[in-house]
């Protein structure tokens, strides 16, 4: 992503977002901007607030204070239809969360049919196009239990894409996968990035993040400690916390 006009549209903006679960303060004043057609990577230790941050962007979790803007609309203002917002934001979870009682095709077409009112035939046609593109067409009538973790996660991505979202959020989508299945899922994410989709990915895959992200934010204890291009953040981190984290990642052989 290096076109000149990309910087103009701020698709997502978080201002001073706080979020607690009971006494546990998870987000302590997060500011984050995601421009259209860019990829933002969120890195940081477990429990730093990456997942919660993503869940606050599509209002799966209401924020305690601060504001969230998507496409210039403030979601945190009163009277916003959360269901309407979620239609425009796709999210993929660590644990896939496919609907086990529905076939792959029905998993994908449920939301387009019920939320957007697409006719069954048209929804299935669109789903089949996506399944074919990601090499899963032969699984259309299978149930989730029959698929490998990598296949399930790719279906979860397709299910989110079927709603034609403006932005996709990835919440550690490879963390629950066997190592040999990580590649096929990352390939899909990489393809979406190449197509110019706006992506926000919370990830432990540092190498992948460095490759695919335009911006990387390092989260620690509910705050964004440091933010920058991957080239800058991964090779010349400024903040001691970031340096410490990356050193540990490198020691673990993950970068």
């Amino acid at each position, binding site marked *: 992503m290096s076109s000149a006009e990309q910087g103009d549209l701020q698709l997502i903006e978080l201002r001073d977002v706080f979020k607690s679960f009971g006494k546990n303060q998870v987000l302590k004043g997060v500011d984050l901007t995601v421009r259209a057609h860019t990829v933002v990577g969120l890195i940081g230790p477990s429990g730093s607030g990456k997942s919660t941050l993503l869940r606050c962007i599509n209002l799966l979790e209401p924020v305690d204070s601060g504001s969230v803007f998507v496409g210039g609309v403030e979601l945190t203002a009163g009277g916003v239809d959360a269901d309407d917002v979620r239609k425009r934001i796709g999210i993929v979870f660590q644990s896939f969360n496919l609907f086990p009682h529905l076939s792959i095709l029905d998993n994908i077409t*449920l939301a387009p049919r019920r939320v957007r009112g697409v006719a069954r035939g048209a929804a299935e046609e669109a789903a089949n196009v996506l399944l074919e593109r990601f090499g899963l067409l032969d699984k259309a009538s299978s149930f989730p239990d029959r698929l490998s973790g990598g296949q399930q996660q790719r279906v979860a991505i397709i299910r989110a894409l079927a709603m034609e979202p403006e932005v996709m959020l990835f919440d550690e989508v490879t963390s629950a996968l066997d190592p040999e299945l990580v590649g096929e899922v990352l390939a899909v994410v990489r393809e979406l990035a190449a197509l110019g989709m706006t992506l926000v990915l919370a990830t432990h895959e540092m190498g992948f993040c460095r490759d695919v992200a335009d911006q990387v934010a390092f989260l620690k204890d509910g705050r964004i400690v440091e933010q920058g291009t991957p080239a800058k953040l991964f090779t010349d981190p400024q903040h001691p916390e970031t340096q410490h984290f990356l050193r540990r990642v490198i020691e673990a052989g993950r970068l």
Partner: protein
Amino acid sequence: MTGRSNRRDVPAWRGGVIAATSTVAVFAVIIFGITSTPGWSKFHESFLSGFHFRKSFPLVLKGFALNVRVFVVAFVLCLILGMIVAVIRMIPGPAFFPFRLIAVIYTDVFRAVPSIVLIYLFGFGVPGLGLDRPWNNPVIWGTVAIVLNSAAYVAEVFRSGIRSIHPSQMSAARSLGLTRVQALRFVIVPQAIRRVIPPLINDFIAVVQSTALLSTLGPLEALRRAQNYASFRFNFTAYLAATLLFLAVTIPLARLGDTLVARQERKSR
């Protein structure tokens, strides 16, 4: 031939022979024990009379048609009411508090009162209000009592089924833009129903049984007809006829539950 039977050097048919011999022996002892009791011949005449069975069975069967009508209607109504109550109890938000409160009180009260008491209260009480036909019929209000009682159980079964579905399923459904009600309808409840088939079958069997309690209101259902036969002919074999009719419904119902569960497992595996 399995490895284990080879190792022990025992032919496979031997287990079957042992099982058959042992079964015959156990039942022989039980039957001998019962038939050698001092009152056996009298008992046999008054409870197991072939003559009275042939005489009473058609009458009891005629009565059983009423039981069937009542439990079929009760099945449908208690499923609907149970699901409504379960869903009401799951809706969050302060505005829904009074509805949740009503649902909780309903469940607590109608599960706690013995069903025969409810049948008395409704079956004798409501027709006493002087309603027009057919609403002065005790059978209708006895059925209502059975429904209210069993729906309270069914509601709890549904509620535990809904709660057993992991919250991530709700997150996934909502993140796709489904409303809370749509998520319940298309994602949560269909999965919950699959999980609660065995306990639901239990409640259905209880509904079938409780139709016999309607005999206390006077209508000529199966048990009432058996009672009448017994008191006019001084023979209890009619109760055996009633027993067999209830078993003819409840045992297939239990097998139906097993079949449904097995089918779901095959489908999603």
